[in-house]
C-alpha cells in the first residue's frame, strides 16, 4: 500500500482556528499581526515534519507488509517442502513417565497463567467458570459437605482409569504391523504418555488460544493430555479421544522420521478421527459422536477411491501408510488414475473438509465410478451429514 504525500503549499501550514479563537486573536493582536507568531510557525513546522516522518514510517511499514505478503505468496508452492524440512529438523522431547509429563503440564500451566496475567486477564473468570460457580452457589452446603471431600478420590480413580486406557490403546496401536518397521523402531522407546488435567488447566489453555479443546497433543513430544471430566464422559468417548491423540503422535513422528510434510489440517484430522473411530468400534465401544464430520466423510470417500484402484485391503493400508509417513505419492497416483490427472493436487488444496468433500463427490460422479454403498460405512452412519444431498448436488 503506497501513501500519497500531501503537497505543502500556501495555507497548508496555517493552524486551524475555531471561530472563538479567531476573535480572540483579532482582539489581542490588532493590525500589525501578519499571521502566526514566529515561535508558533516553528512549532507548526516541527509538527508537520514530525507528521510527515510518521507518514514515511507508516509507508515503510506498509511496504514491509506488502513485501511480506509477496514473500508468503511466493513461498506457497514450496510450503510442503518447508514443512517437510521443519519436520525433519525439529528437536523432540521424550517423556519417560507420567511424573515427567506432569512436570511438563505444570510448566505449560504456569506459562499460560503468566501470559494471561501479563495481559491483565489473570483474574477474569470465563463463562463456564462462572456457570460452575453459580451452580456451586445454588446447591449451597451440599457441595462443601459431599462433593469437595470426595473430589480428590474421584480424580485419582479417573486418572488411573485413563492411564489404563492409554496403555491398552498403546498396546493395540503401537505395533510393528500397524506402524511399519521404521516408525515402530522410532517410537518403541517412547510410548505415548498421558496426563489427565483439570478443567482449569484446559480453560487456561483455551483462554490463551481462544479456542476450546478436550484433548491436546504437544507436538514433537510423546505427551498427550485429556480433560478430567470427573466421570462425566463415558469410557468409549475417553478411549476415542486418547486413540485420536495417540494417532497424532505416531503420524507426527512418522513424518519427522521420513522428513515429509504434513497434509493439510482438514485431511490430517479426517484421517486421524476416522482411524480412531474405527479402532474403538473394533474394540467393542460405541462413541457418542464423531468429530470433524465433513473431514471424516471426505477421507472415507478418498479411501473408497483408492480402494477402487488398489483393492480393499491394500487401499486402506496405502492411505494409512501415507498418513503415518507423510508420503502421499501412491495415493496421488491412484486418485489421479481413477479421477483424472491433477485431481489429488486440487483436492488437497481445498480450504476445508466440506469443500474437499463436495469437490471429490463431483469428480467421482463425473468419472462414473460406482459409489453405491459408500455411505454404509458405520462411522459415516453416525454423522449428522445429509450425504444423499451431497451426491445429489455433485
Amino acid at each position, binding site marked *: 500500500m503506497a501513501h500519497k504525500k500531501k503537497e505543502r503549499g500556501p495555507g497548508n501550514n496555517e493552524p486551524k482556528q475555531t471561530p472563538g479563537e479567531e476573535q480572540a486573536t483579532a482582539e489581542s493582536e490588532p493590525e500589525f499581526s501578519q499571521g502566526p507568531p514566529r515561535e508558533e510557525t516553528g512549532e507548526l513546522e516541527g509538527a508537520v515534519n514530525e507528521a510527515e516522518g510518521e507518514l514515511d514510517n507508516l509507508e515503510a511499514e506498509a511496504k514491509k507488509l506488502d513485501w511480506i505478503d509477496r514473500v*508468503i505468496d511466493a513461498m506457497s508452492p514450496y510450503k510442503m517442502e518447508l514443512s517437510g524440512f521443519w519436520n525433519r529438523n525439529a528437536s523432540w522431547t521424550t517423556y519417560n513417565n507420567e511424573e515427567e509429563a506432569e512436570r511438563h503440564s505444570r510448566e505449560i500451566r504456569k506459562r499460560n497463567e503468566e501470559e494471561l496475567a501479563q495481559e491483565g486477564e489473570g483474574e477474569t473468570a470465563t463463562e463456564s467458570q462462572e456457570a460452575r460457580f453459580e451452580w456451586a452457589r445454588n446447591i449451597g452446603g451440599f457441595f462443601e459437605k459431599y462433593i469437595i471431600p470426595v473430589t480428590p478420590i474421584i480424580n485419582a480413580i479417573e486418572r488411573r482409569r485413563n492411564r489404563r486406557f492409554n496403555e491398552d490403546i498403546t498396546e493395540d496401536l503401537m505395533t510393528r504391523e500397524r506402524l511399519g518397521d521404521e516408525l515402530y523402531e522410532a517410537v518403541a522407546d517412547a510410548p505415548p504418555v498421558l496426563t489427565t488435567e483439570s478443567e482449569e488447566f484446559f480453560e487456561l489453555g483455551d483462554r490463551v488460544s481462544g479456542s476450546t479443546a478436550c484433548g491436546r497433543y504437544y507436538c514433537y513430544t510423546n505427551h498427550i493430555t485429556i480433560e478430567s471430566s470427573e466421570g462425566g464422559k463415558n469410557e468409549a468417548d475417553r478411549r476415542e479421544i486418547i486413540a485420536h491423540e495417540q494417532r497424532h503422535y505416531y503420524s507426527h513422528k512418522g513424518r519427522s522420521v521420513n522428513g515429509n510434510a504434513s497434509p493439510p489440517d482438514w485431511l490430517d484430522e479426517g484421517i486421524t478421527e476416522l482411524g480412531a473411530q474405527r479402532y474403538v468400534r473394533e474394540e467393542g465401544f460405541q462413541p457418542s459422536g464423531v468429530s470433524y464430520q*465433513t473431514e471424516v466423510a471426505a477421507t472415507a470417500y478418498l479411501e473408497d477411491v483408492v480402494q477402487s484402484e488398489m483393492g480393499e485391503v491394500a487401499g486402506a493400508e496405502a492411505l494409512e501408510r501415507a498418513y503415518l509417513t507423510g508420503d502421499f505419492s501412491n495415493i496421488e497416483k491412484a486418485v489421479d488414475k481413477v479421477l483424472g490427472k491433477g485431481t489429488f493436487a486440487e483436492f488437497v488444496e481445498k480450504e476445508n473438509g466440506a469443500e474437499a468433500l463436495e469437490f471429490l463427490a463431483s469428480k467421482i460422479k463425473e468419472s462414473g465410478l460406482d459409489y453405491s454403498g459408500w455411505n454404509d460405512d458405520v462411522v459415516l452412519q453416525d454423522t449428522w451429514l445429509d450425504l444423499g*444431498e451431497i451426491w445429489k448436488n455433485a
Partner: protein
Amino acid sequence: MKIHEIMKSKEYKEAKDKIRDWKKQLDREGEEETLKIREEQRKFFSEMKKNNPEIYELFAVSRKEIGEKIYHNITGEEAIID
C-alpha cells in the same frame, strides 16, 4: 445437515473470507495483533455458534487451526488443540 445449501449461503462465504484473512495475518503478525485477532475470532465464532450452529460445525478444523496459530504466536509452543 445440507452442506451444499450451507456452502452457498452468504454467511458461509463471509466466514470463509474472514478465516482466510485471520490465518494469513497470524502467519506474520506479532503478539499484539495476535491478541486482537484472538478476541475478534472468539466473538465471531461465539455468535456463529448461537446463530448458525451448522456453519459453526463446518468450520471446526478452521477454528482449531486458528487456535493453534494463536497459541504458537503467544507461547512459542506447538500443540494440536482438539
